[in-house]
């Protein structure tokens, strides 16, 4: 009998242990008061940059390059931390949980704009203040090197002839690949979708003949196109790429889609939480502006054909305008296609 009671106690402590840390694991405000006094001499120690995706992805790559350039301007090292998981919401949450002192910054991709409607988290761009809107990695449509499709017209006409059977690899609902598949649906093309956990997994699926095609970030597939393992059929944009004048832009073959294809699909930006003092944000912003002009960084961007969004969106107002326009366009598209859990209306996101 006594043993049963003891078992009960042990079980309770088992539950308690999880609950205790659930409540205690929240935000621990560290040193926020100390920093009020030291507003001008920020930064005095290393800064942590959280990348909410795994190492090696486009967000990680650009983030690390930018961190390098930024740390030169700030005179402090920047430690990049990958906190992947849950469509980027883990890393974003970690940034919100960190102190208000500006020593934790976030290098986020687009998922902040769709997390609420996709029912992943309650966070959005509004919870953060933009420091810099850095880059957009263009999306391209690729097939295997030995594929029977040689042009985007071949592929699209086959999809049209066999709706729901031509397999396409994408990175899961709400991601940029999904958004593009929805655009294709809108114009009467219906590929069969199979989800892969990362862009590179999708590429392997294309090369291994599991699926017919995928749309991928250009920087990820660049070397495969050069080696002939993959064929690039189209650029998901309104303009062709400089390096590949023979490859069509998707808007040329899907008439009327210009409006949707002109959106940057993976806008990458440097953010801090809203509570970070304005002075600190200004220090970061002016350093970011200089870092954008860093020769090594520019060369990296050019080599990988990444759009330099910072050239277009310079002020905080511009960036915020960009985020709300992006959020509204993509959220409504997901919702109208029946892919979103929550209505954008619930969050006051206006129709585009």
């Amino acid at each position, binding site marked *: 009998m006594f043993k049963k009671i003891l078992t009960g106690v*042990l079980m309770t*402590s*088992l539950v308690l*242990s*999880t*609950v205790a*840390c*659930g409540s*205690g*694991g929240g935000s621990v405000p560290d040193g926020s008061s100390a920093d009020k006094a030291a507003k001008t001499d920020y930064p005095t120690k290393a800064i942590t940059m959280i990348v909410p995706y*795994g*190492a*090696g992805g486009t967000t*990680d*790559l650009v983030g*690390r*390059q930018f961190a*390098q350039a930024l740390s030169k301007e700030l005179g402090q*090292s920047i*430690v*990049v*931390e*990958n*906190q992947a*998981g*849950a*469509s980027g*919401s*883990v890393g974003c*949450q970690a940034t919100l949980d960190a102190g208000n002192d500006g020593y934790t910054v976030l290098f986020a991709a687009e998922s902040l704009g769709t997390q609420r409607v*996709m*029912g*992943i*988290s309650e966070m959005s761009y509004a919870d953060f203040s933009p420091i810099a809107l850095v880059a957009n990695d263009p999306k391209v449509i690729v097939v295997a090197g030995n594929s029977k499709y040689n042009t985007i017209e071949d592929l699209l006409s086959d999809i049209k002839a066999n709706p*729901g*059977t031509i*397999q396409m690899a994408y990175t*899961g*609902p*709400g991601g940029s690949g999904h958004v593009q598949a929805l655009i294709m649906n809108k114009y009467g093309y219906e590929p*069969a*979708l199979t*989800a*892969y*956990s990362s862009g*590179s*997994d999708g*590429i*392997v699926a294309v*090369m*291994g003949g*599991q699926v017919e095609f995928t749309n991928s970030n250009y920087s*990820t597939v*660049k*070397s*495969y196109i*050069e*080696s002939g393992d993959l064929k690039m059929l189209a650029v998901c944009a309104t303009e062709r790429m400089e390096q590949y004048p023979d490859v069509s832009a998707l808007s040329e073959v899907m008439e009327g889609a210009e409006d949707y294809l002109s959106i940057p699909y993976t806008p990458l930006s440097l953010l801090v939480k809203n509570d970070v003092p304005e002075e600190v944000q200004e220090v970061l912003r002016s350093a970011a502006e200089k870092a954008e002009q860093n020769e090594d960084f520019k060369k990296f961007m050019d*080599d990988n054909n990444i759009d330099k969004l910072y050239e277009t969106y310079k002020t905080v107002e511009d960036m915020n305008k960009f985020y709300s326009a992006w959020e509204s366009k993509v959220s409504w598209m997901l919702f109208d296609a029946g892919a979103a*859990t929550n209505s954008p209306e619930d969050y006051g996101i206006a129709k585009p």
Partner: protein
Amino acid sequence: MSILGVLAYCVNIRFIILTFLGSLAGMFVGAIPGLSVSMATALLVSITYTWSTEDAMGTIMGVYVVGVFSGALSAILVNIPGAPSSVVTTMDGHPLAKRGKAFKALKYATVYSFIGSVFGLAALAILAKPITALALKFQPMDYFLLALFGLATVGSLTSKSFSKGLIAALIGIFFSLIGLDSVVGSPRLTFGIQGLKSGIATVPALVGLFGFAEVLCTVSDGYAEGEVTKLEKMVVKTGEVLKEFWHSLYYCVIGTFVGALPGAGGPVAAFLAYSEAKRIVKNPSVPFGEGAVEGIAASESANNACIGGALIPMLTLAIPGDAVTAIIMSVFYIHGLQPGPNFLKTSGEAFNAILAGGFLGCIFLLVLGTLLTPVVSKVISVPKKILLPVVTVLCVVGAYACNTRMFDVGLMFFFGILGYFLRTRGYSVAPITLGLVLGGMMDTNFRRAVSLASTAENPVIALFGRPITIVLTVITFITIISNIPAVKSLRVKKVRSVDLEPVKAESAI
């Protein structure tokens, strides 16, 4: 790759010193429960990004090679594997250490880790292209079946009863389901708890199931106060150790190939090699599971051969084979290198540096292993009353450090207490770890396979119709059926003389 290019690094003093420092660091992080090699490499990424690519590669390869090995140290000495791939080493290593033969166990671990690492790296140097081509042939259904096969094997290896082994694996898979679903992104089994959204992290679970549960089990076994395991003074001849050499080559092949399949990695390789060892080694020194050195040889050569294997898809397909290679890949990108089909052609220098760093790491592994094992094996003679509290604190800190979340500490305790209950009822915790590690991969690949097959004209043929799939399905079925008690007793009647089953439930980890 050119042999001269590799050799050039091996005589470069600066490169050697950096690799050595990396190896020392690897020894340290690998051996401390809760500190993982991936954590150390992640840290190195931020330290080395201003260095030259070659220097960074040397250091990181040192950490990687020696770190994977030194996971065996804590596995053998305190029954806490430093990483999932060392889980198998606990099965024979710890019983051996308990009998005072820690030194012997460590010697085997050192030698076979060395052999495994060298073999894997050699395969990387020579066979990268054909192995890539083979790995590309593996489709989602094959990955699913491979994981299922791995779990069935583990279930049959670790418990007295097959159903208990499978149930343990199932518990692991169950925990892997928690969190945001990797495909659709909707929360699954989180019951509204924010901390569960990112899923159950492997390190806290591992540390809890092995480390904290071990503390609780020792307490409940009613150890005598001040009890000390005596360390037996012994000389282990290298010639004797090398008896398993020819078998180990077979384990190395398993290790390299499984390592090259993204997502499967070290733990699967070690388990498969171990089950093969059980099959091919007819007369082990003592029965498997009670301290058979043959088991240590199998697990250590296979998990270290995985290093070379895991680097193959990372270099040729930009798909990392495991967590560590994922981080190494980001180092590449930082240094402007593009892993992918052209890598071996265009970045020969970096490839040479990787191989040189790897081979030097192997040498340091052997040196450090030989020099340090007599010292670290003394850990086992630390009185329990001091060892247990310190191990508990290490468990807490390790669980916390991997993601700096207090929530993970709670998870660690949860798994510790769960592990304690399961162990007292004759369940082994090793399959839980493996289930947890493989669950996510099984889930996504199964759904992918179904999704891909659903558009085919004949879904069943699309699912099972290819040669690799047929082979995997057949061997999985054979493993399961041959372990069903009724079938098993039939077979045992036939071969009465050989009884390989572990006698006591406790000896199953």
